[in-house]
């Protein structure tokens, strides 16, 4: 007899993602399927529009990270016109983007996925949220979170023209720069953000790293996978969110190469499966071997953890210290702690992504200050007029939840003829599916009674990736039921469990 368990986190925002768990006759997990309906036709929808519209148009694909799409589209627009923005424009874009990362990573850690690990895997859903953290840590933390978001959004508005959907990036740069008064304000907010990021890492250290039970959960096998990792790096192989090459690192730490954004078709291919519309990207040079770990499998991951693994370090001093501490704590070699950042340092524990996200938060805050104090940042030279005939271009940035690639083709007037997007979370579709299966396999055994805590742990497996498959943003009806239906061999439900996340 086969049983089927369905976890159905129905939400408009996520596009009706659904997890199906099939049990074998013994009651163990035979297989799991994570299904996501693809949003059809966005590429077709864009065809016929001027390429310079794309930074605004694509920022509406998703209400979660419009800034990432805005920036990838802006860079693709530069590439289509073969134009290099002036240094001040490049720096202002990166400054906006750093502030966006601070706001986004803060939100994920305190309000979305982080509470899973701060409050504990067995905490009831009603406590696994920011209100639970406030209850545990104190009211002050809530104010800091809102402040971090407010400062991030203020910088986005000053440079991007609008607080929510930025509108100032055009091919060749920006439509406006910033004043000295604005620069001073941005610097002040950035210095606060650095302190806030340090505070957040200290909090993580106190509540999680020094708690052996939580550390064991991170280091345990349930949430561990041995895959490839990709992430954008600068010329020194340090993590960069805005520009650079994409570094590809194998499960054993070997860097198998770096590719420029326009070379992504040589590195990334997509695998179709009959049970889902969304395709599974994989490394072309390694090949698709199925949903399996190891150096022979082309499955890769693109997350904050991936970016740290794919790089040699962080470009700012405080984040670098935390980077070293991260690997010193989590990477062991033959019983010895492996401290130096070298070719074999790779962390495979997926729950460590929460920690990696905080190290990136600190880097983003430090970079915010660096750029705000750059002598060129208030220059009025923020646009280079395109002079070449538009053709084709690729723009790539790191979105908070993975490498984001926009590829446009235009006619000689700059009107789009073809569009291809590989969005952040799509990169992680295969590893997310594998993490759900492994969590289910480790947690559901013959005779196991499905409990709420067990569902929490399966949910944690995909929440750590900060997945985003959505586009429609809704507040209504405002419920996210996590529903598990256990069915008998005839498909008749024998037990239904439900919780609100």
């Amino acid at each position: 007899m086969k049983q089927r368990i369905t976890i159905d986190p129905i939400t408009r925002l996520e596009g009706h993602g659904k997890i199906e768990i099939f049990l074998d006759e013994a009651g163990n997990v035979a297989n799991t399927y994570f299904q996501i309906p693809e949003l059809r036709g966005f590429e077709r929808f864009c065809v016929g529009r001027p390429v310079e519209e794309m930074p605004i148009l694509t920022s509406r694909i998703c209400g979660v990270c419009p800034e990432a799409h805005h920036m990838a589209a802006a860079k693709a627009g530069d590439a289509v016109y073969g134009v290099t923005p002036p240094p001040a424009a490049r720096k202002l874009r990166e400054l906006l983007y750093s502030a966006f990362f601070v706001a986004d990573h803060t939100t994920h850690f305190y309000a979305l996925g982080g509470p899973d690990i701060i409050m504990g895997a067995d905490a009831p859903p009603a406590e696994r949220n920011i209100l639970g953290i406030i209850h545990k840590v104190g009211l002050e933390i809530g104010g800091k979170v809102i402040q971090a978001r407010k400062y991030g959004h203020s910088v986005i508005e000053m440079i991007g023209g609008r607080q929510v959907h930025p509108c100032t990036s055009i091919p060749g740069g920006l439509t406006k720069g910033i004043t000295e008064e604005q620069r001073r304000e941005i610097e002040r907010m950035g210095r606060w953000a650095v302190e806030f990021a340090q505070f957040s890492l200290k909090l993580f250290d106190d509540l999680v790293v020094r708690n052996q039970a939580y550390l064991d959960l991170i280091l345990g096998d349930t949430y561990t996978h041995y895959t490839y990792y990709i992430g954008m790096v600068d010329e020194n192989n340090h993590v960069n969110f805005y520009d650079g090459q994409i570094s590809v690192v194998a499960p054993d730490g070997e860097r198998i190469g770096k590719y420029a954004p326009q070379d992504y078709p040589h590195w990334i291919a997509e695998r179709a499966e009959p049970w889902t519309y969304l395709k599974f990207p994989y490394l072309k040079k390694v090949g698709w071997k199925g949903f399996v770990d190891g150096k022979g499998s082309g499955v890769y991951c693109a997350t904050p953890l991936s970016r740290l693994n794919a790089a040699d370090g962080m470009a700012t001093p405080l984040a670098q210290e935390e980077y070293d501490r991260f690997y010193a704590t989590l990477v062991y070699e033959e019983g010895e702690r492996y401290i130096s950042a070298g070719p074999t340092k790779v962390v495979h524990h997926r729950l460590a992504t929460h920690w990696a996200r905080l190290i990136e938060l600190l880097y983003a805050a430090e970079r915010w200050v660096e750029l705000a104090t750059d002598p060129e940042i208030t220059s009025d030279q923020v646009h280079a007029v395109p002079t070449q005939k538009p053709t084709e271009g690729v723009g790539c940035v790191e979105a908070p939840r993975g490498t984001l690639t926009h590829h446009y083709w235009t006619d000689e007037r700059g009107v789009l003829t073809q569009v291809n997007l590989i969005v952040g979370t799509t990169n992680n579709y295969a590893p997310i599916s594998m993490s759900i299966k492994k969590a289910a396999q480790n947690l559901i055994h013959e005779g196991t009674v499905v409990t709420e805590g067990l569902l929490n742990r399966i949910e944690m497996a995909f929440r750590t990736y900060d997945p985003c498959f959505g586009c429609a943003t809704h507040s209504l009806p405002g419920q996210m039921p996590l529903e598990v239906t256990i069915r008998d061999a005839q498909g008749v439900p024998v037990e239904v469990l439900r919780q609100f996340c």
Partner: protein
Amino acid sequence: MPMDAACRPALVVGLGNPLLGDDGVGWQVAEHVRREAGPAVEVDCLAVGGLRLMERLVGCHQAIIIDALATGRQPPGAINVFSAADLFGLAAGYSTSVHDMTLAAALRLGQTLALPLPETLWIIGIEVVPTFDFTETLTPPIAAAVPQAARLVLELLRQPVEEGQMI
């Protein structure tokens, strides 16, 4: 606008994705209101979730949100009006997704932190059938609901603050 900047007394927010067909009905109602309401009312069109929406409401005296609603229990185009109290009853959980909080949870956070939230909040929900195809065109029953929903918004804006509407 920064969230603590001076805000006009009344804010109307059209919510949704304007590229996703009927999902964008909130934007169209908001634009309709913008044309008729005059400068005393601030109108914004947003594609954001609960937390950022709550932050946008900070500093406003009165707010009306228009959004698509998918209950599957009403004909497309049916117009619903909820108060903030109704919203708390509807949203039992804290998250609309793994990615954001519900507006109700975000409002609770705002209350906990003593942020200056609107004294009155109405939510207009227009029943739609969810779609996954990109288009800027509304289906006929949803398009027909736009002027009616806009009139409702204008009527609510004229109503005095009542006890039951308090957040």
